[in-house]
């Protein structure tokens, strides 16, 4: 009989979703998983087993004496180092989410330990240079609430509206939301807010429910456990971190808005939103709005940075992604329900936007890969 592996999962910052992924792998692999959440060094002194999952210390940790795990000389895999969320893709998705809704003014709020986090940077870089961009960066050495708050207030007041704000996690997003509402701004009409982590308990329980990027933390946990298992078998750890792609944006009220004043644009987008799943064409949109095709086209490319046809495609693609992620429908059905109509059309759009087929995309992004 193969001996059961004993693995320690010891973290200071507890993310239930990461734990869920690690636990899922542990159960399937038949590990005995020891869990220590609120890590203090004595708890695990002399711990001895087959391997350890823990996390990189960061700037915040220096505030407390926690030289944890340094003295345990056993195979170990580090969250935030060996397996990390794909920050570039997160930044890109956030920018795309707001641009699809017609925003021209952007801000990012989040801690940069002395500088800009990769998440914030990716977002900034995904926004076309012509648009207005604000940064609200917390210097982690000066991160008392009162300082953060005055910084947010100042930026929210001075930035042009409507303003799209990405906060680098849901907790920070809640701070922006609170400050914006206190200043008398409407959310999402004046200030539209997007968080990251998709922490249901935070997002769904705010006065304005919060949109958030689901960065697939379950998968991060699962992959870190799988990596450790292979490492115990003798495989060296990768030089580059394993990147886990985000699952997508979960849109709630805080960003469910079109930053568009133009009535014919609103009418056109409303029509597309209601009918993208059927076989509509650009001509149908033009006929519905009742202005010349050329005029409408110019409004789209001026305000939305895309053509009418691309707008229809955006809706279809989002629908198809959501079906691939959340259902086990076959490709034919996904193509039909998302309005792409044919399998060929679905494939072509995925290749263009994701450089992979819908089948590959589903496999790569699905919450937890199938075992064995």
């Amino acid at each position: 009989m193969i001996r059961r592996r004993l693995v320690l999962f010891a973290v200071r910052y507890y993310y239930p979703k990461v734990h869920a992924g690690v636990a899922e792998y542990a159960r399937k692999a038949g590990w005995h998983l020891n869990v220590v959440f609120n890590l203090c060094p004595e708890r695990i002194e002399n711990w001895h087993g087959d391997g350890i999952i823990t996390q990189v210390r960061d700037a915040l940790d220096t505030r407390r004496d926690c030289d944890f795990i340094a003295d345990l000389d056993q195979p170990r895999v580090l969250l935030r180092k060996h397996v990390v969320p794909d920050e570039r893709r997160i930044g890109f998705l956030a920018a795309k989410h707001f641009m699809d809704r017609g925003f021209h003014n952007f801000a990012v709020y989040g801690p940069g330990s002395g500088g800009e986090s990769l998440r914030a940077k990716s977002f900034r870089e995904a926004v076309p240079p012509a648009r207005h961009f604000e940064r609200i960066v917390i210097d982690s050495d000066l991160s008392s609430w009162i300082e953060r708050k005055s910084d947010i207030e100042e930026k929210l007041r001075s930035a042009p509206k409507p303003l799209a704000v990405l906060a680098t996690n849901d907790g920070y997003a809640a701070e922006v939301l609170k400050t914006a509402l206190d200043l008398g701004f409407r959310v999402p009409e004046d200030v539209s807010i997007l968080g990251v982590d998709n922490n249901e308990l935070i997002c769904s329980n705010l006065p304005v429910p919060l949109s958030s990027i689901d960065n697939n933390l379950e998968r991060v946990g699962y992959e870190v456990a799988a990596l450790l298992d292979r490492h115990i078998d003798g495989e060296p750890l990768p030089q580059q971190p394993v990147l886990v792609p985000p699952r997508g944006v979960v849109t709630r009220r805080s960003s469910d808005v079109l930053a568009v004043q133009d009535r014919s644009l609103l009418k056109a987008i409303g029509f597309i939103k209601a009918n993208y799943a059927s076989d509509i064409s650009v001509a149908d949109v033009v006929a519905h709005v009742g202005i010349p095709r050329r005029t409408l086209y110019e409004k789209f490319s001026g305000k939305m940075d895309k053509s009418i046809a691309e707008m229809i495609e955006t809706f279809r693609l989002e629908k198809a992604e959501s079906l691939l992620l959340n259902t086990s429908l076959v490709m034919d059905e996904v193509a039909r329900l998302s309005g792409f109509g044919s399998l060929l059309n679905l494939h072509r759009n995925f290749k263009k936007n994701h450089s992979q087929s819908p089948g590959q995309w589903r496999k790569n992004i699905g919450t937890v890969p199938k075992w064995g």
Partner: protein
Amino acid sequence: MQSYSIDIHAGIAAYANEADWHLQVVMRAYPEDLEKWDGDGVIVRSFESGGRGEAAGEFPRIDLPKVVIGRHVAADDARVGALAADYLLRQGYSSIACYAGSARSDSDCLAEFRNIVARHGEGIEASSIDMPAKARGWLERKKAIQAALKGRQQPAGVFALNDELGSELLEAAMDAGFLVPEDVAILGAGNDILICENLPVPLSSIDPDFKRLGYEAARMLDRHLDGRDLPPKPFLIPPRRVIVRRSTDIMAIREQHVSRALGFIQRNLHRRFTVDQVAQVAGFSKRALYKAFQKQTGMAIGAYIEKMRLHAAESLLTESNLSVGDIARHAGFGEPRNLYHAFKRHHGKSPREWRSARKR
């Protein structure tokens, strides 16, 4: 919150939603982060779970109405201990113990646990798996657990103060070759599903109803903001119930044990034996055997043994010419007068009268 519980968060969030609060969550709080935070009120969780009354140093820099989970609202630790004791006693283990890791073992929870076992244990004592004074490290703890388990009568029922410790105990027990739950049954507390359901032997645990704890903390803060005083003593939330998973599920095993007892009785009817001996063979405590036997056969074990002996004696009386004295010995009654009394009780006749009535 310094230590995060998803259920407490869910409870607070549920109230926040009802009351239309803006709930700002800091899942890993450093006091500096929250300096001069300017909302209406704060809910914090004390550092040490179970460290009731020691939370005074929490976030001193926030000078706002504050409800401290652990001080103003708390899990009813004593009732958690009582529930654990009651559950393990009803399961009928031969020995009962508790495990608190390196933490203080004088908590309300363990005190009440011992109390209940002492009061209703009928001879069973609740021992604690204590750590040697300097055993802080993992390895020392593990060794101490294994040594303690070896000294216990099996099956042993062990209550671990929380699920993390339950997981630790499970690993130490299995590593030393004990079967769980056959030799050592383990009950945790907290019902952390991610821990309990993903262990090699899923862990039974007490559901402390943290969701309600969070909800009540939020409600108390709301009332406090309206001017009501905070209670001088914590408002206690009782645990919900024991969530039974495999680590204490001895019903299946119990059936095997009872049939082992039945086999032993059949094979040994010709001699004297005690219920203690049956229990030993079956791998039960005497208490547990009484209970399981009654449950499965509908009879008390003593009555069952006597009935079997009577049947044996009856057949010898009708089918042999052995003397009543011999029959008493062959049917395991020992002295003839034991056989005589049993017959008088059951048939209203002496063995001799019963035999002649049959022969006629």
